[in-house]
C-alpha cells in the first residue's frame, strides 16, 4: 500500500468561505475574531467570537435546501464538503461506490438549536422540525444523503480533537483496504450550549485570545467547517494533490477531565507517535500548527511537551488567534491551514503575542514568512485527555 494523499480541500471559517479567501487572510495575518452578530446568547455583545458572517437563510438558498430541520452545523459542513469534492474532481460515480468513505466529526451537532432542544426534551405531545437533527451524526447523515456516499460512514467525537481523529480514521480505512477514498473533516457552529459551557469553566477570554503569551487569559469560541478528500497515491496518477498524510497518533493524557497534566504526557505521546508513524526525526518538522487555545493550562503544557520532543522547537503558531477555537472543526480547519503552509512554503503568524511564558520562553511566529517546508505537524487536544497529532508531508 502506497501513501494516502490529499486531493481536495474545502474550508469555511471566520477568515473566509473558501480555501482561497482563508489563504489570503492567513498571508495577511488577518484576525477574523469579532463581536457576535448572528449567534443568540446573553453573551453575544460582550464576548468575542470567530463567527462566520453568513446567515442560515443565505446558506439554505445557496444550496437550495428545503429541509426545515437542517441546522447551521449541517449547512457549514455542506459548504466545506462541496468545495473539497469539487477541488478533488471526484465525480458522482466515484462518490456513490461502496469504496468511498465519509468520516465526520462534531461536538455540538444540532445542539446549536439549544432552545428547541430544551423544549423537545420536555414536550408531551409534539416535537419541533429539529427532532432528528440534534445529534452529531445527523450532520454526517445529511451529507451522506446529499452526495449518495455508500462506503463506511462514521461520526467521531473526542471533544476538541474530534476532526483530527476523523482524518486519522479516514487515512487508516484507506491504508487497510476498507476504502479507496475517504472524505474526512469536521464542523461546529457557535451555540448557546458551548458558550455557557466554556464560560462556566471560566476559560473564555474577555478580549482577544493571546496564545502563548505570558498574560493569556482564555479562548475565543469560533465556528467553521473543513473537509478533505483523501485518496490512494496509486489512484491519482496525473491528478494534482497537496501532500500526503504521513503520520498520526492518538494518545490520552489520563490526568483530568478538563485540563492537561503538567508535563503534557498526552500531547508528548501524540507528537512522538506521529513522528514514529511518519518515520521522521523531530528535526524534519518545519512548522507546528499548535493547539494553542490561549488558556493558562493548554499553552504552557503544550510548550513543555514541544520542548521535551524537539531539541530546537520549530517555528510554531496558533491558528486560534485568528479564527477562535472551532472545537470539533478545529483540527480539520487547521489541517487545511497547515497544508496551505506546506503547499505554499509559508509560515503564518500567531496574533496578540507580546511576552513569553517564563517557564518555557517560546516565541510563536509573528510575521508571515516564506520558508521551505517538507513536513508540518498539527496538534489537537481535547477534554477527556484526547490528544491527536497529525503530520503532513510534501513528497
Amino acid at each position, binding site marked *: 500500500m502506497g501513501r494516502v494523499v490529499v486531493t481536495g480541500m474545502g474550508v469555511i471559517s471566520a477568515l473566509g468561505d473558501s480555501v482561497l479567501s482563508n489563504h489570503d487572510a492567513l498571508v495577511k495575518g488577518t484576525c477574523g475574531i469579532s463581536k457576535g452578530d448572528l449567534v443568540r446568547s446573553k453573551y453575544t455583545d460582550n464576548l468575542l467570537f470567530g463567527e462566520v458572517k453568513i446567515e442560515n437563510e443565505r446558506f439554505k438558498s445557496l444550496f437550495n435546501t428545503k429541509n426545515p430541520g437542517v441546522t447551521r452545523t449541517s449547512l457549514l459542513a455542506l459548504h466545506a464538503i462541496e468545495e473539497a469534492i469539487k477541488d478533488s474532481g471526484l465525480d458522482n460515480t466515484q462518490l456513490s461506490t461502496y469504496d468511498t468513505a465519509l468520516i465526520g466529526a462534531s461536538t455540538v451537532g444540532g445542539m446549536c438549536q439549544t432552545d428547541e432542544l430544551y423544549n423537545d426534551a420536555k414536550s408531551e*405531545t409534539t416535537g419541533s422540525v429539529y427532532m432528528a437533527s440534534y*445529534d452529531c451524526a445527523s450532520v454526517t447523515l445529511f451529507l451522506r444523503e446529499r452526495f449518495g456516499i455508500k462506503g463506511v460512514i462514521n*461520526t467521531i467525537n*473526542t471533544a476538541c480533537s474530534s476532526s483530527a481523529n476523523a482524518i486519522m480514521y479516514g487515512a*487508516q480505512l484507506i491504508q487497510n483496504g476498507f476504502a479507496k477514498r475517504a472524505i474526512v473533516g469536521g464542523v461546529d457552529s457557535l451555540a448557546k450550549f458551548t458558550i455557557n*459551557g466554556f464560560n462556566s469553566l471560566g476559560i473564555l477570554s474577555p478580549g482577544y485570545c493571546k496564545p502563548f503569551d505570558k498574560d493569556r487569559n482564555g479562548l475565543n469560541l469560533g465556528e467553521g467547517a473543513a473537509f478533505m478528500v483523501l485518496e490512494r497515491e496509486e489512484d491519482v496518477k496525473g491528478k494534482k494533490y497537496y501532500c500526503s498524510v504521513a503520520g498520526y497518533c492518538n494518545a490520552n493524557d489520563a490526568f483530568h477531565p478538563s485540563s492537561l497534566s503538567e508535563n503534557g504526557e498526552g500531547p508528548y505521546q501524540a507528537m512522538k507517535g506521529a513522528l514514529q508513524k511518519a518515520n521522521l526525526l523531530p528535526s524534519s518538522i518545519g512548522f507546528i500548527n499548535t493547539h494553542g487555545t490561549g488558556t493558562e493550562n493548554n499553552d504552557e503544557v503544550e510548550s513543555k511537551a514541544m520542548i521535551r520532543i524537539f531539541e530546537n522547537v520549530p517555528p510554531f503558531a496558533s491558528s486560534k488567534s485568528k479564527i477562535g477555537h472551532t472545537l470539533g472543526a478545529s483540527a480539520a480547519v487547521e489541517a487545511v491551514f497547515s497544508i496551505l503552509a506546506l503547499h505554499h512554503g509559508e509560515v503564518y503568524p500567531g496574533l496578540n503575542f507580546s511576552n513569553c511564558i517564563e517557564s518555557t520562553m517560546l516565541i510563536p511566529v509573528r510575521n508571515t514568512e516564506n520558508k521551505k517546508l517538507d513536513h508540518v505537524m498539527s496538534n489537537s487536544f481535547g477534554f477527556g485527555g484526547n490528544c491527536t497529532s497529525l503530520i503532513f508531508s510534501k513528497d
Partner: protein
Amino acid sequence: MFIHRSSCISPQHTFGNVDMDTCVIPENNILKVIEPKYAGIPLNILRRMGKAVRLGVGAALPLLTGSEKPDGVIIGSANGGMEDCVKFLNQIIEYEEGRLTPTNFVQSTPNAIAAQIGLTTSNTGFNITHIHRGLAFENALLNAIIMLRENKNASYLVGGVDEVSSYNYNLERLDGWYKKEKVTGTDLYDSSTEGSIAGEGSAMFIVGNRREGSFMEVRGIRMLHTDDPFEVSTQLREFIAEHGYHDAFLSGENGDVRIQSFYNSCENILDPEIVKLHFKHFTGEHPSTTALALWLAVRFIETQQIPEHFIKGPAISKPLKNILIYNTGKGEQHSFLSLSFVDH
C-alpha cells in the same frame, strides 16, 4: 480479531452472577439496566459520574483488573453523556445563562465514557469515541480491527454503551419509536404495530490478534446505509459469500412493523436449517444493541446453552459454531457481523 474477555451490564442478569433463563419484563415498555454496586469505583468519583459513564466504566473495570493493560480504549456510543447534557441545558435555560456549574458540561461530552475509562485505569494509549448513531459500536469494532492490523501485538478494550435518558427517551417517543401498547416479553415479535421497547446497556470486550485464550473470532464486519431492503439482502448475500457458512442468525428484529421487511428480506436468503435467534426482548432497543448482541453471541458459543426465549426456530440440533448478526438502526443504518468459534 479475537475476543478474549467480555463483560456486560444490561437490563437482565448479565453482570456478576449471570442468569440468562429468567427475563426481566419491561416496565412501561422500558428495560432499564440492573446497576451493580460498582465496587471498583471510589464513591466520590462515582457520585459525579453520569449514568452512561457509570455503565461504561462499570462494565470495563472487571476486564482491566489483571496485569494486562490494553493499548487503548475504543468506545461506540450514540448518546454518550446525554443525561448530563440535558442537565446542563436545563441550567442554561432556567438560570437564563447565569452562573452555571461546569460538572454537567464536562460530563456531557460523548467522549466522557472512554475518557473516564482511560483516566480511571491510567491508560495513556489510543482513546476514541464513535458516535455514529446505530453504527457507533460497529465503527468502534472496525476501528479495533484496523488498530490491530497496524499494531500486531496490541490489545484493545472495545465497547458499546447507551442509556435511556430523559432527553433521548422523550425525543424517540415523540418520533414514534416506542410502542403504545404494553409489551411483556417475546410478544414483542408478534406485534403488528409501529415502534419497539426502549432499552439501555453496556458491553465491553478485550480484543487482540492472539488466538490462544479466545473462544471467538470476529471474522468480518460490514456496514451499510440504505432504506432499501433489497439492497440490504443483496449485500448480505455478498457478505456471506465472503465469510462462509453460518449455522445461526442473530437478528435485531424489534417488533416495529416499519422495519420488519429488512429482517424478513435477510432471513429469506438464508438456508432454512440456519437457527434464527432474536434478542431485543432481552435488551430493548437502543443505538448500541449490537454490542449486547455480540456479548450474547460470545456467551452462546462459549457455553453452548441458548435459552428457549432467544430461539425463533428451527430447534438447535448441533453445537453452534458460526453466528451471523444482522441489525438495523431505524431501517437506515445496517450492519452484518460474522463470528466463529475458535477450536483449540
